[in-house]
C-alpha cells in the first residue's frame, strides 16, 4: 500500500483500502444506541489510518475501537464521557474535531480571522487615494463648451 501511495501522488481522491464494512454482529441491537455510537465513532480517528474515522476504516484497530465505543454506549455513558475516555487513552490525536485549547485557538479562529483580514484589506483599499482623472484635452474642452452653450 505504501508503494501505491507514493506512486499515485496526483489524484484528487483518497486512495484508502476500500474495505470498510462493519460486521453486524458488533452493532448494538437498539437502533438509537447504535446511531449514537456511530455519531461518536465519526468524531474519532482511526489512529493507524490516514484521515479516516473509525466508522469508515477497515483496519483492525478501528474495529476494536468501534467495539469499545459500543461497550461504553451500552453502559449508558454520555458522548462526552466516551470521547474523554478515548482522549485519556490515545491523546488529542484521536479526535477528528480538535478541542478548543491554546494550541488550536488559531485553527478555530481561522474563519473569523480570514473575514477580518478581508475587511482590513478592503478598508485600506477604500482609503487609498485614487489619482485624479486626467485633465480634459483641448478638443474635449471645446466640446464641453459647445455642450454647455447649447
Amino acid at each position, binding site marked *: 500500500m505504501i508503494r*501505491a*501511495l*507514493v*506512486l*499515485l*501522488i*496526483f*489524484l*484528487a*481522491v*483518497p*486512495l*484508502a483500502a*476500500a*474495505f*470498510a*464494512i*462493519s*460486521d*453486524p*454482529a458488533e*452493532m448494538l441491537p437498539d437502533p438509537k444506541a447504535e446511531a449514537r455510537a456511530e455519531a461518536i465513532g*465519526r*468524531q474519532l*480517528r482511526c489512529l493507524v489510518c*490516514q*484521515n*479516516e*474515522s473509525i466508522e*469508515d476504516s477497515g483496519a483492525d484497530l478501528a474495529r476494536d475501537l468501534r467495539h469499545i465505543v459500543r461497550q461504553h454506549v451500552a453502559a449508558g455513558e454520555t458522548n462526552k464521557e466516551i470521547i474523554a475516555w478515548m482522549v485519556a487513552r490515545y*491523546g*488529542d*490525536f*484521536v*479526535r*477528528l*474535531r*480538535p478541542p478548543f485549547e491554546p*494550541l*488550536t485557538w*488559531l*485553527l*478555530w479562529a*481561522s*474563519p473569523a*480571522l*480570514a*473575514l477580518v*483580514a*478581508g*475587511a482590513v484589506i*478592503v478598508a485600506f*483599499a*477604500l482609503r*487609498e487615494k*485614487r*489619482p485624479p482623472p486626467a485633465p480634459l484635452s483641448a*478638443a474635449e474642452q471645446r466640446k464641453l463648451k459647445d455642450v454647455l452653450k447649447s
Partner: protein
Amino acid sequence: MIPELGHFALALAVVIAAAQAVLPLIGAARRDAALMASAPSLAFGQFLALALAFGALLWSSVVSDFSVYNIAENSQSLKPLLYKITGVWGDHEGSILLWCLILALCGAAVGAFGRALPAAVRARVIGVLGATSAGFVLFSLTVSNPFVRLWPPPWEGQGMNPLLEDPGLAFHPPILYAGYVGFSIPFAFALAALIEGRVDAAWGRWVRPWALAAWAFLTGGIALGSWWSYYVLGWGGYWFWDPVENASLLPWLAGTALVHSAIVVEKRDALKIWTVLLAIGTFSLSLCGTFLVRSGILNSVHAFANDPARGVFILVLLALVIGTALALFAWRAPRLLPTGIFAPLSREGALVLNNILLCSIAAVVFTGTTYPLFAQLLAGAQISVGAPFFNAAVLPLAIPLFVVMVIGPMLSWKRAALAPALIRLWWVALAALAVGVFATFHTAIFPALGFAASVWLILGAFVDIIARIRLFRLPLATSLARLGGIPLAAWGGAIAHAGMGITVAGIAGMAIAEHRIVAIAAGETVDLGGYRWTLEDLRDAPGPNYSARLADIRVTRDGRVIAVMSPGRRSYPLQRTTTTETAIRTNLLRDLYAVLGEERDGKAVLRLHVNYLAPWIWLGALVMAAGGGLSLADRRLRIGAPLRRAAAPVVAA
C-alpha cells in the same frame, strides 16, 4: 528504440522550453519584433516534442515493453487495452509527463488563439509559460524519468493498483490536470502585466476566458473524483475532507474568486491589483496542491524523505516559481494605480464580498489541512483535523456566500439600492422559507437549511433573466422572444449559480440518507427506506485478471421489482488486493446503493444505502462547468476582442 526516441524528445523539450523562457522575454524587453515572433513557434515546438515523448511512453505501455522500468512496475500484459492507455498517467512518472504536456499545450494554445494580443503581451505570456515549463520538464527528465530502462526485462509486469482499473478514475487525471495547469495561463498573464507595469480592462478580457476554461475543467475533475470515491470506495460517502481532496478544492475556491473578480476588471477597470494577486495565488495553490500535498508531507514528514532527490527538487522548484511571482508582485504591483470607483453597495461591492468569503473558505481549508503539520513541527503535538472541523468551520462562511450569490447579480454596477433587488427576490425567499420549514418537520436542522439554500440558489439564479424578459409584464410570446436577446454570458452565470444550488440539494439529500448493515443468507429479506431487499444468490464470476464474488439482490417496493443489482468483491492475485464493486441503481431522485462484505457461515454481510438526491451532487457540478462553458462561448468574451480599437476613434474625434 521507441523509449529512446521518447527520452530524446523529452530532452529536446527541455531545451526548447528554455529557449521559450528566454528569447520572447528578451524580445519584449527590447521591442525586437523578430524575437517576439519566435514565441508561438517555440511553444508549438515544445508541445510537439512533449507529445512525441508522451506518444512513446503510450506505445511502450500498449505493447507492454517491460524493459522500461516504469511500465514493468505499473503494468502487466493481461491488463485490458483501455487501462494500458490510461495507466500511463496512473503512476508518478507518467502523470508528471502528462502534467508537462498539458502545460506545453497551454503555451501552444496562447500561441494559436492569441493572435489578436499585442505582440509584447503574447511574447511575455508565452515566455513565462516557457520558464515554468522548463523547470517541470527538467524535473521529469532528471529525477522522474519515465523512460529509464530495466535490464534484464522481467517476463511480466507488477501490475497496476486495481483501484485504478476503473473508467471513472482513468479520465479523472487528465480533466483535473487541465484545470490545475489551465490556471498557468492567468498566472502568466498576471506576470506579463506586472513586467509591463500595466493592467487594463483589455487585460481582464484576455484573462477571463482562460480562467473560465480552467475553472470549468477543475470543476469537472473534482466532481469526477468525488463520484469515483462514491461508487468505488463503497463507504457511501462522496467527500472526506482528505488532504488530497482539499488540495484540489483550494485552487477551485481561489479560481472561482478569480473568475468573478476578472469580471470587475473587464467591466469596470477596478480590483486590478487584487485580480493579479488572485491569478498568482490560484496557480500557486494548484502547484502546492498537486506536488506538495500528494507527496505525503502532510500525512507524515517521513513519507517525503522516501525519495529525497525528488522532494528537494520539487521544493526548490515550487519556491522558485511561487517566490519569483510574489517578489515580482511586491515590486511592481504598487505601480498599478487603483482606478474605478464604486460604492460599497453595488455589483462590484457584492463581487468583493464574494471574493472575501471564497478566500476565507480557502484560508480555513488551508489552515485546517496544514495545521497538524505545523502543530507537530512547532509544538511537537499530535492533533487531527478532520471532517467534523471542516463542516463546522466552512458552513458559517458558506451561508452568507449563498445569500450574496443570489442578491449580487440583482445589483447594478457602480452604485445600487438594496430594496429593489430584495423586492424582486421576495417570492424566491418565500419559496426557500417554505421548503425549509417543511423540511424541518421531517429532517434535522442542517439538511433543512441545505434544502432551503438550494431552492434559494436555483430559483434566485433565474430572477435576473426573468426580469430581463419582463415575464408576466409583457405578453408571453414577447417575453419568450426576448429570451434570445439575452447574452450567453448572462445565461452562463445563471446556469452556473443554479448548478451550485443543485449540488447543495444533493449534499442536503445525502445528509438524510439511510443505511443498514446486515448479515443475511441467500433467500432472506431486509427492509430499508421503504424498499424490500432480497438476497437471491451468492456466486463466483471470473474476470480477465481477477476473480470475483457477486451477490444478486432483488429490490422491490409494494411487490413491484424496482431493481436487480449485483454488488461484488474482486480479488487480484497478482497485486494481492481485494476491491469492492459497489452496485448502484439510480432514478435521479435517489440511489439504491449496495456493497458486499465478508461472508461467514453462509451469511453475507451487506451494506445497503438509500441515498436521496445523491446524483445531484455531481450533476450540479456538471451544470456549473457547463455554465462556465456557455459563458466562454459568448462572442463578447472571445479572446483578444479588440477593446482599444473601439476606444481609439472616440479619442481621435
